[in-house]
């Protein structure tokens, strides 16, 4: 979609991107800035930035780009000018980086990595990603608190990534 947009600058594609992301941007704005009308203004401002940005530079991940820009704009709006990262560095953000390093990995290696996690993390990740169970179901089965389940999954994901990267390095060195 981004490539097509870059080539043709098609309005339909921009409209589609707007359809997919505007409500998320609005939601993030709502989180950091409670004023609804301000949030609407911010959404249009961010899309104006997007249209200018896409004509000059490349965007690899729309999710990351929009998230970082939205947060920056929200903080700027609140006169709290601490920025998470510079716009040009958005490609190095969390999601993109994770995805880039964890491409083309088989399910077996992932399963092996999961088995090396702590038991709570292991259980939660298996139930959540492999058995497609909701937080409530996991909570009922494991009697963990939902907040804990979330943190187990979150930490489990981070550890899983580290384990998988180590495995990849090992296979490369061998």
């Amino acid at each position, binding site marked *: 979609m981004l490539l097509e947009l870059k080539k043709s600058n098609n*309005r*339909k594609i921009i*409209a*589609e991107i*707007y*359809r*997919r*992301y*505007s*409500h*998320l*941007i*609005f*939601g*993030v*704005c*709502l*989180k*950091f800035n*409670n004023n*609804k009308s301000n949030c*609407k203004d911010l*959404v249009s401002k961010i899309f104006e930035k997007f249209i200018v940005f896409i004509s000059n530079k490349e965007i690899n*991940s*729309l*999710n*990351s780009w*929009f*998230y970082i820009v*939205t*947060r920056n704009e929200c903080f700027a709006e609140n006169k709290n000018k601490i920025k998470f990262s510079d716009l040009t560095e958005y490609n190095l953000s*969390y*999601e993109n980086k*994770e*995805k880039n390093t*964890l491409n083309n*990995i*088989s*399910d077996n290696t*992932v*399963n092996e990595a999961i088995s090396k996690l702590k038991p709570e993390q292991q259980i939660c*990740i298996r139930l*959540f*990603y*492999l058995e*497609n*169970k*909701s*937080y*409530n*179901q996991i909570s009922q089965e494991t009697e963990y608190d939902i907040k804990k389940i*979330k943190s187990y*999954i*979150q930490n489990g*994901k981070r550890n*899983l*990534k580290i384990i*998988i990267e180590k495995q990849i390095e090992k296979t490369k060195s061998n």
Partner: protein
Amino acid sequence: MKLIDKIYNTEPLSKREIKLYLKDKLSDSDKNKIEQKLMNSKFNNDAFEGYVANNILPKKNNFLHNQNLNFILSFSILITTIVLSFILVDKTQNQVNPNIKISQKNIIEQKQETKEILNINNKQLSNNNKTVTKKTKTIKPIKNNKFYEYLPVIKPKTVKQLNKVKIKNNVNLTNIKLRSNFKTKYLVNLKIVDYSLFKRTNNLTKNNNDIWNVAPEFANNYEQNIKTKNIKSIEYTYFDFLKSGLQEFNDKNYNNAIDDFEIILSQYDNDLNAVFYSGLSYYFKNNYSKAIKYFNIAINADINVFYQEALWYKALSEENIDKQKCKQILKTIINENGFYAEKAKQKLKKINE
């Protein structure tokens, strides 16, 4: 989907998903899908938290979100312009004159054809009675045509007073027909009825290609007309159009003058200027029968600006057709003792000789 992609999938949440999740209308497996998206993407998670914290749902109309965005926008613009134009047309119609009616006829085609006038008896000029001479030229009126019901006669108070006054030399001015009952003025040295009191909003149009000769790339007029149909048109006010017609009349280009007057008549059915000068044009073209029809309209009109002239020229026209009628008209002119009375006497003498 690979397991690794599932764990690190960052697909954006849709509005519908957020709505359904917040309304708690999902099965556990569907909830899990959304929770995975929330877990995998901080963007999704923060947005979701924003909606939860403010206790609102993403609304459809918050943003322009439709795929057919351009279509909807253009369609809505189209509808608003149509509605606005209708309102404007209504307003202008109401402002002009309560007597205005709208006629959807009056489109002059390009082939030459002539329709005869049937009954020209009525005092009021009805729409059915007019002559429509279809022309080879591409001159045509604009689409929305209005015609005026017969214009209200303005009888100045001074005229009424004059009825009672008898001047010393025994000239009785009782005959209103000899006094102009409507404002007049002169254009290209010709007397005209001054309709400026009545707004005439619908301008007349002329195709540009009519002004020039056939362009070299076209074999004939017809081909040119078809190909350049919508290229350019010039819009004239009533006054300008009348002026050009009278100018043609002055220059003795009677055919062109008649063309212009017909355009005026096609939109302003009762326009006395066009009626009278059409009649004169036909008279000078020696087309006496047609000229008489136009003069009759001018004579029977409630506005008597051209009454004397029309009567005189009718007499001159009748001279070439029916001398008895001519004599009768001359006698009436003499009896009315108007501007042409002396001329009428001389003419009558000549005929009697």
